[in-house]
């Protein structure tokens, strides 16, 4: 399994999660977990996905989600999971 973390930060609007999930399902990327909070008045969503079955290169997913974020008006980042586990887990 190849895990990645997708974070979405920005002003809340209708359909953010739907747009992200539509993209992921279109490219065979499986969502494992979603959590969402409001931090400092901002919409904050974190999603853990498995991209091992995806039909796209990881770099392409990163770029696609980045432009999707621009379209919606939020910041979408997709990063490989290791940077977070590396930093926070001994």
């Amino acid at each position, binding site marked *: 399994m190849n895990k990645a973390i997708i974070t979405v930060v920005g002003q809340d609007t209708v359909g953010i999660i739907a747009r992200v999930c539509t993209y992921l399902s279109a490219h065979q990327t499986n969502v494992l977990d979603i959590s969402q909070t409001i931090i400092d008045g901002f919409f904050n969503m974190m999603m853990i996905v498995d991209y091992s079955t995806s039909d796209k290169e990881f770099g392409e997913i990163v770029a696609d989600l980045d432009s999707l974020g621009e379209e919606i008006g939020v910041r979408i980042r997709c990063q490989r999971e290791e940077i977070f586990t*590396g930093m926070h887990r001994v």
Partner: protein
Amino acid sequence: MLNIMEVHETNQMIEQEKLDVRTITMGISLLDCASDDLATLRTNIYQKISSYAKNLVSTGEAIEREYGIPIVNKRITVTPISLVAASACNSVDDYVQIAHTLDNIAKEVGVNFIGGYSALVSKSMTPTERLLIESLPQALSETERVCASVNVGSTKTGIDMDAVALLGRKILEVSEATADSDSSGNSKLVVFCNAPDDNPFMAGGFHGVTEGDAVINVGVSGPGVVRTALETARGKDFGVLCETIKRTAFKITRVGQLVAQEASKRLGVPFGIIDLSLAPTPAVGDSVGEVLEEMGLEQVGAPGTTAALALLNDQVKKGGIMASSYVGGLSGAFIPVSEDQNMIDAAASGCLTIEKLEAMTCVCSVGLDMIAIPGNTTATTISGIIADESAIGMINQKTTAVRVIPVIGKGVGDTAEFGGLLGHAPIMAVNQKSCAAFVNRGGRIPAPIHSFKN
């Protein structure tokens, strides 16, 4: 399982507090390139570097994208050129041609600096090492990306004062040769005592003779992250202060470790070391001076600065050492003047002097770094500054270095502009009393008594 707060913390460190991997540096041994024919040597060097480093930049960029962590520089270090070129170079011009070869290959593979135009002369100079030092003014003014260093002393050997005296003169010549760019040639030249073999940071990086054929070293940096963390420790005692720095350094180093292993795997080159340093940039919020001020100093240079820096340096090492099994290089806190906004301000206001900086170098990771001095400073005075700094390193068994920039045509009160990451610096006053008779004695300062540990 990760939680959203941890993910948020990591991304805030990267986006707002300027956490970055400062450099992925590939060290390449050129020992097997040696030849007594200059043309063959240049071809060998060219082929060896391009075969190892052709994918360095693209791999670094891919890692950057996938993890979302900026990797600011991709660089190369090579075996000290004075060793590789000993039998092929008979003149200054021969050495300059090798500098051009290095510059061309750096441009071709896309790295911003290549380090290793170096000589190790801690005990004394061979004729060919002397030639390399003689070639520095021409080599550094005619090339763009080549970085040079000279190791003039060590705790085991003492200090080669002939090399120190020669370098004082050459540094001035480098300044004159690059006078049209505020003498910035000297920003690519470092004089060391106890130089480490595995330093990934420029301009002092080279691939030491103790290293393998090729290696990936990584330098991480995050003064902004440490400063932000320290905001939570305001008014608390030193125990809390130290714990905060330590925890932060641990997290920063883990990111470096991850990037280093990933780069090593993808490039098929063994992982060497993590250099867990706090290295500033001229950007606001990326300053080591700011970290020191956050600890409670009105401005860097105030009494207490040396203690604050000692504490910072030590806690960075303590925090980082558990995060990576192979820590090396210079590890600690860098205090370059021109590359750190708060240091620039302190020097400009007169709060920070060269003498205070010298005291600070006893407890920092490098030494007098990126300090602009008047262009009319004498060669022997520059040699005196190098000798003082080398003595600190020699006696205290630590690495020290000097990167001073006499700026031709400018004096105290003026500012030198180096551009980009190198920043700008106010010209600092230098003590005007002469040390010429001391520097010109010639010979070697013997190794200190505590070097005998056999």
